[in-house]
């Protein structure tokens, strides 16, 4: 758990954040509960990207492909082909399909490096985008697709919870967000996770000491794809719709931005980044007309003065505080 909780200050912050998230629905109206659910889903999306960007050193500019695909798997199973709406079938199916797709794409794109990797991930994401934009059998349409309903949690005749309830969906997403963080924290201290971080640190030497670097990268790409698929699935469930824009390069750029804002290679960075991004959007759009402009300026300033992301703000402040005392 050292990856999750690195210092006592962090522990307090994390506990506060989770406690706030846990009690939030009791104090808010439905509108904000839904909004926070949305941001938590985007956090999961950003955190899944962090496994590639922050921990393996693979800058993917096509991560939205897996996000969108995850949503579309549910739309196709539940609405278009009406095969099943069971949560217990569609959610694993979403993750499995996106992971498999990421694996196949990874076979090709991971043969490239640096700038070329950025470009080919973008290119593959665009190909998938047009699948869901133009191919009728895949629900292709520029308007996307409205879903029949939320997935059903029924097991036989027993219904443990209803995702159509706003608060239930909120807690379901919160639970999965925490599960994802714990999963990644465990993964990152495991031999596989260590090797991925070694690849980020010095890929050439990893190869020289006997690691089949390509296969390790492929594992990371597959896992990150499956996790992004889960986020996309939840996003579709929340919105009760899917749209090819979920796979667009804007979406890929936005999640990258969230991660940079929050801090890469920090695990919490994606969470903090997604909330910062949403907060900026919300606040700026209420009192500024050209709010995109202000958002851009603020992001540039944050990147310039907080290159470690928002997560480094805490250490900065503590550093200033301790500096003043000594």
């Amino acid at each position, binding site marked *: 758990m050292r990856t999750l909780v690195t210092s006592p200050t962090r522990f307090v912050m994390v506990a506060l954040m989770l406690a706030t998230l846990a009690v939030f629905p009791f104090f808010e109206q439905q509108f904000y509960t839904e909004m926070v659910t949305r941001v938590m889903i985007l956090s999961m999306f950003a955190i899944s990207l962090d496994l590639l960007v922050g921990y393996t050193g693979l800058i993917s500019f096509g991560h939205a492909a897996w996000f969108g695909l995850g949503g579309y798997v549910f739309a196709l199973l539940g609405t278009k082909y009406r095969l099943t709406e069971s949560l217990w079938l569609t959610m694993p199916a979403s993750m499995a399909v996106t992971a498999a797709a990421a694996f196949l794409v990874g076979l090709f794109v991971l043969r490239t490096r640096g700038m070329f990797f950025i470009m080919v991930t973008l290119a593959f994401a665009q190909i998938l985008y047009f699948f869901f934009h133009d191919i009728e059998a895949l629900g292709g349409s520029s308007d996307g697709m409205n879903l029949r309903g939320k997935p059903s949690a029924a097991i036989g005749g027993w219904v443990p919870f209803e995702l159509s309830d706003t608060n239930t969906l909120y807690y379901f997403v919160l639970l999965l967000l925490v599960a994802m963080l714990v999963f990644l924290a465990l993964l990152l201290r495991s*031999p596989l996770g260590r090797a991925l971080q070694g690849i980020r*640190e010095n890929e050439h030497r990893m190869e020289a*000491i006997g690691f089949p670097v390509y296969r390790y990268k492929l594992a990371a790409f597959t896992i990150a794809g499956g996790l992004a698929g889960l986020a996309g699935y939840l996003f579709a469930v929340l919105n009760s719709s899917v749209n090819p824009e979920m796979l667009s390069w804007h979406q890929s750029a936005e999640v990258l931005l969230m991660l940079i804002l929050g801090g890469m290679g920090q695990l919490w960075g994606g969470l903090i980044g997604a909330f910062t991004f949403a907060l900026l959007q919300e606040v700026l759009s209420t009192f500024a007309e050209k709010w995109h402009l202000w958002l851009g300026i603020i992001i540039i300033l944050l990147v310039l003065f907080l290159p470690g992301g928002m997560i480094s703000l805490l250490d900065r402040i503590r550093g200033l505080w301790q500096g003043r005392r000594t």
Partner: protein
Amino acid sequence: MSDVLLRTVNLRRTFGGLAANDNVSLELRRGQVHALLGPNGAGKSTLINLLSGDIMASSGQVFYQDRDITRLTPHERSLIGIGRSYQKTNIFPGFTVRENCRLAAQSREPRAARIFSDAATWGPYRAVVDAALRDARLTDVAERRASDLSHGQQRQLELAIVLATRPEVLLLDEPLAGMGHEESLRMIALLRGLLASHAILLVEHDMDAVFSIADVLTVMVNGRVLITGTPEQIRASPEVQQAYLGSEEAVHV
């Protein structure tokens, strides 16, 4: 005594029209330090890269204990027992010294599917790492960040990483580069300690060090082997004298 671990046959590598290595045949035996000498541009580093798989041969073969490994990738060669160190320090700067070595040990037992186990605490890794740190005399600084080490210590770490992969053949590209006198002596003592169980190929510019430790020397000029022999034979060779007379470096005899 003299079992041959690594052998090359007529190895050749060209870059464009230039033959950086041509018709190179040599043998590395267990228990021997085989030193590679030659002026800059003679093809020493190319040869090490050919042996480690960092570059591929244009023609000719490399054998590891009679197995043809000419087409193997660097990680495959590392796994069968060929370890190399780099002239330019090539470590994991952001990790602790211990983690640098632990990663190397992990490559022997990847356990990649065990995604819920803690890599840092697994016993068998620890044992290998502790031995490598002890051999490279880095135990005291094991928990420091690699980037915080002195240059000499980083050179020792460079070697410790290789040792943690438990190789049979060591390809050492200027292990003494940039080291002070004291540090060099310690490194030479360290290499002597490894000798019995390893075959060592040593590229080194420090002639005193080379002649003090080498059992066999190969002198290369313009990508070709000029002569291979014992230190006495090399000292006495008129060809070597002549090859070095034209260059700025000189063999201190």
